[in-house]
């Protein structure tokens, strides 16, 4: 029996694989293809205090080996989310991680407080969305601002908090330390890399928002390097993500220092990508006779 269980701030996941926020809704759509109970956790799309309409379309574009998105965190707000999405997820034998977004520190704190009594296992604080004008990445590109918001959110949170870091920074190690100093329980990285695409035939930006977040296999080497650097900088558990499509990709992140991994854009190419990744990790363990996945976390120094 291979032990695939991992622990994030006292929360035990049956396997290290979760979904990346924004690529999976709250799981309802993908639950038609496979059992959400096969995943370590479901990470929801970002939720704010009030409904957010998001950005104008077009919101996405394909790039070579990747995609750009500027959805702009369209979400129904915490009230609908509590009534509809949490009870839905509760039906499945998986951990629930809610991604929280806001325009101000108070916004984040209120959402986090409203989730305090809910059956939610972890909170992922989105301070790294590159596609909204206020909030989002504004808190995630300056170590002092990141430390301050982490401290404030932590004060209001009943569940352990995951700070989701942006790759659009000079030194990811500084950001990891700032989140730790603010009291983060877990780090997740990377969010998307800010990018752009131009439609030369219509002479316009391919995305209405002009800039957009790049994700997919194209960014995997950057993500992996940053997860490694963050793991070197702090002792906190890390959820690694960025271009993971299968068990082999997940193993790279685990060997670099990630305790868990998230599958995002790959789900658009293959609705079963997260499940396939979980199975791929077990196959890897069998191939190399690994009895406990925890033995491989950060094994490549």
């Amino acid at each position: 029996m291979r032990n695939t269980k991992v622990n994030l701030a006292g929360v035990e996941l049956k396997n290290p694989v979760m979904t990346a926020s924004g690529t999976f809704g709250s799981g309802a759509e993908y639950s038609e293809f496979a059992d959400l109970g096969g995943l370590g956790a479901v990470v929801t799309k970002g939720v704010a205090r009030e409904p957010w309409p998001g950005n104008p379309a077009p919101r996405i574009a394909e790039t070579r080996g990747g995609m750009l998105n500027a959805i702009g965190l369209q979400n129904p707000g915490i009230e609908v989310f509590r009534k509809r999405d949490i009870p839905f997820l509760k039906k499945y034998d998986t951990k629930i991680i809610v991604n929280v977004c806001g325009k101000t520190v108070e916004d984040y704190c209120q959402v986090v407080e409203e989730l305090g009594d809910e059956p939610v296992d972890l909170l992922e604080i989105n301070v790294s969305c590159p596609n909204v004008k206020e909030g989002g990445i504004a808190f995630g590109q300056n170590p002092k601002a990141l430390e301050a918001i982490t401290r404030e959110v932590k004060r209001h949170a009943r569940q352990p908090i995951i700070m989701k870091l942006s790759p659009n920074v000079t030194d990811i190690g500084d950001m990891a330390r700032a989140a730790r100093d603010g009291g983060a329980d877990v780090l997740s990285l990377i969010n998307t890399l800010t990018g752009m695409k131009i439609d030369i035939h219509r002479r316009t930006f391919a995305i209405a928002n002009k800039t957009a977040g790049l994700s997919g296999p194209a960014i995997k080497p950057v993500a992996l390097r940053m997860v490694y650097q963050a793991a070197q900088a702090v002792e906190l558990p890390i959820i690694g993500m960025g271009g993971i499509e299968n068990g082999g990709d997940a193993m790279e992140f685990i060997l670099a220092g990630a305790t868990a991994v998230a599958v995002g854009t790959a789900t658009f190419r293959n609705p079963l990508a997260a499940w396939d990744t979980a199975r791929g990790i077990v196959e890897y363990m069998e191939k190399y006779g690994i009895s406990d996945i925890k033995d491989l976390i950060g094994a490549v120094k």
Partner: protein
Amino acid sequence: MSRYKEMAVISEQQEISPGIFSLWLETKEIAGEAKAGQFLSLYSGDESRLLPRPISICEIDREGNAVRLVYRVAGKGTQEFSGKRPGEFLDVVGPLGNGFPLLPKKAFVIGGGIGIPPMVQLARELDGEKQIVLGYRDGDLFLKEEMEAFGPVFCATEDGSRGTRGNVLDAIRENGLDAEVIYACGPTPMLRAIKEFAREREMECYLSLEERMACGIGACLACVCKSMDVDHHTYVKNKRVCAEGPVFKAEEVDLSPWISQTDKKEGRS
């Protein structure tokens, strides 16, 4: 309503007009569940192309468990599909979206350009009196002959080489046509004009919209259109073309161009 992920077998592939291909797929479950106006997501075999291509269903053979897609080669993904031969496989998910309601009313079945294919199955399934109005850029009238099996067909061409010179509404006016309900698929400017035409005449009207998609099943919120009322997913005024659509009642959607935050700030519109 169920959707399936399948490896479908190509049974036929033909270029019916320059750059426009007709593809028959043998499916396990999809054809049996599919409705006129729904679409499939087609996945590329090239790992560098991540996003599925949404393609509307042109014909459904429920007994034979097959669906026909008619699509234009618009980029590398569709080019790859067009190179596949009978016996080869295509990775597909479907059927997706809501499809057209079949109403027992005198109907206009309107298709513009590559918006024509989904109207074929609809024209076949509509029981009542119907008039089919097709808009083309030039005299290359793909699918016109097939549509003639289901009712009278009126054509408009932008270059005036065949039928009415102008658009589908010009063809309706020139031929003095009338109906109680409109079904339409085509480019947004055409749909905008049809919406206005239907409003003026107080006609019931269903429009099939297109937007760039990622997941194709309602999870990612990429393919939204503006809606007149608050939607029941996010409770804003956006509807998901892949989930609540692609077919909308005309008065349900706002087809005016999006105004971005940036445009507002810079005083552009």
